[in-house]
């Protein structure tokens, strides 16, 4: 029996099985090895799936051999394969980093549970991306969310508990909205298979429940992806979670939510319903612009590096949804490529921030004064990541910005071009705030003399920094995949 046809199932099952195994092992070290191996396995599988779907074919896998639409279907197309590569790849890079990072932030007797939760979170995120069943999305969403709440609560600051609680409330409301939307779709079409709903929706006579479903889903998903002004949960969660968790979540969780949004908009409801019947593009455009400007401005006033980066994430999500609101090939390419690029950048930035925290003992900017002189290499990495947030050529941020500006130009909307480039100037402000604090102030006396960092903290972070530069110089993989995925998505409804 060959494993190749079962890759879609293995993609989810592999990390899923390691979670209970990690709990049974009751040893941090063994759990670490197991989950890391599973993450790398998942990464390899995702690359395999990406390769299989690159030509445009769609892999459909019937779980338990129950044919869709009756059974649950796993469905991989270009977009889902691309997101799978991002999620599994980030897990594979962040996990080696976890070992030393949580050593400093989480009591040792909880380590094996940490890895179990991490594996569950990964399972959930991969599951959301790969499933072709609407209710299944909700289930995987809750698996990843519940694991995420626990991971955030493991932060050593007591405020992590409150952050986790707040995220639990907001996240559950979001998930419930999503399940209401799915329920309404189910009631009108009688099926839960996404593709099947998509084909049946045009024949539905009453439009109102469908529009209500669209509204519920949009709000619910936007809560999860932290679209301004539904982002309130995000800054606290990112600030107080353990550094490794923040790096993983910032790179993947909101991105997967974007994927869900794209999936529902283009594969289920169809472009004409979403973009013509409701004023959604206009609303999304305004909210995206608000995110880009307000969140960037707020980021410039933060006193904590992780919180600054968290607000920057809210702003960058604005870019992602802005591309979506254009409803064009270039705009959608920008959305998908920025989803990947921003994942890389923020993953790198939060990991490097974690390195600083490991030495300085906290991420408050007051603690990090003069850190550029004390730890020049790590601080320089943060500047590199910051340049990508700004969109300087030679970094991935530039590639994303290029397509966003191009999409705005194709629509002939110059004011939007100016808004896009203008908001990146706000990124200059918050990145340079860090630069000035890190280099123009004297290092505090309390900094430990031994500032060497273990390789396992530095190597994964620098791997991602290198990736932000590499994919900024040679964007054939990212842009190629994103453009092809956008084409496939648009082709579904046109």
């Amino acid at each position: 029996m060959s494993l190749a046809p079962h890759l879609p199932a293995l993609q989810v099952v592999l990390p899923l099985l390691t979670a209970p195994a990690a709990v049974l092992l009751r040893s941090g070290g063994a759990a670490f090895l197991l989950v890391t191996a599973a993450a790398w396995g998942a990464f390899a599988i995702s690359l395999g799936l990406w390769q299989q779907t690159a030509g445009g074919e769609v892999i459909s896998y019937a779980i338990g051999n129950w044919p869709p639409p009756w059974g649950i279907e796993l469905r991989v197309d270009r977009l889902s394969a691309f997101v799978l590569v991002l999620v599994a790849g980030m897990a594979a890079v962040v996990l080696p980093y976890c070992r030393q990072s949580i050593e400093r932030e989480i009591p040792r007797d909880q380590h094996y549970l940490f890895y179990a939760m991490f594996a569950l979170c990964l399972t959930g995120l991969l599951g959301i991306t790969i499933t072709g069943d609407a209710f299944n999305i909700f289930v995987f969403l809750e698996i990843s969310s519940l694991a995420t709440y626990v991971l955030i609560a493991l932060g050593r600051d007591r405020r992590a508990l409150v952050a986790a609680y707040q995220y639990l409330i907001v996240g559950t409301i979001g998930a419930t909205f999503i399940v209401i939307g799915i329920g309404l779709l189910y009631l009108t079409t009688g099926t839960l298979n996404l593709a099947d709903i998509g084909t049946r929706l045009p024949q539905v006579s009453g439009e109102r429940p469908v529009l209500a479903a669209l509204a519920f889903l949009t709000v619910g998903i936007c809560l999860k992806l932290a679209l301004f002004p539904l982002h309130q949960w995000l800054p606290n969660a990112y600030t107080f979670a353990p550094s490794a968790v923040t790096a993983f979540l910032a790179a993947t969780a909101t991105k997967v939510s974007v994927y869900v949004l794209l999936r529902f908009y283009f594969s289920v409801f169809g472009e004409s319903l979403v973009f013509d019947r409701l004023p959604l593009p206009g609303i999304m455009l305004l909210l995206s612009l608000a995110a880009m400007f307000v969140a960037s401005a707020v980021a410039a006033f933060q006193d904590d590096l992780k919180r600054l980066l968290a607000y920057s994430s809210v702003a960058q999500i604005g870019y992602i949804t802005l591309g979506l609101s254009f409803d064009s090939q270039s705009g959608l390419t920008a959305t998908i490529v920025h989803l990947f690029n921003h994942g890389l950048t923020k993953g790198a930035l939060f990991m490097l921030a974690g390195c600083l925290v490991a030495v300085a003992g906290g991420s408050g900017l007051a603690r990090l004064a003069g850190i550029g002189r004390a730890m020049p290499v790590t601080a320089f990495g943060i500047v590199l990541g910051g340049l990508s947030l700004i969109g300087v050529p030679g970094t991935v941020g530039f590639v994303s910005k290029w397509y966003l500006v191009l999409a705005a130009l194709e629509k002939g909307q110059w004011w939007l071009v100016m808004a896009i480039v203008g908001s990146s100037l706000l990124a200059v402000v918050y990145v340079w705030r860090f630069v000035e604090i890190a280099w123009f102030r004297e290092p505090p006396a309390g900094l430990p003399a031994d500032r060497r960092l273990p390789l396992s903290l530095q190597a994964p972070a620098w791997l991602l920094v290198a990736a932000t530069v590499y994919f900024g110089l040679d964007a054939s993989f990212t842009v190629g995949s994103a453009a092809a995925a956008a084409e496939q998505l648009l082709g579904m409804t046109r």
Partner: protein
Amino acid sequence: MSLASHFSYWVTIFLMVAGLFIVIARGNLIKKLVGLAIFQTSVYLLYIAPGKLIGGTAPILAEEFKVYSSPLPHVLILTAIVVGVATLALGLALVVRIRETYGSIEEDEILAADLADGETEAGR
């Protein structure tokens, strides 16, 4: 089509709004969770009620049963209930830990304590 024939929807909507209102309006962390549970419960009803046909039974393949209620919503909601219970359990566990470290489960008191934390950290 009358109000009465759709009464299950009205109940659903009432529970939904009531639950959401409690989550937003209450400052007590436990009460918030109660509201959240009510909110989730409304969804159970949203799924289950339309699946029931009057006079229908469980899908048993036998001569005397002709009218079936759809079993799928029940299965789905069974899953949703499990998720809801897990969420509630985790939420309560978090509240216990919050109570241990902050000595309070009132949102305003906790936020005040957080603010103080933030200021000591910034060194002001």
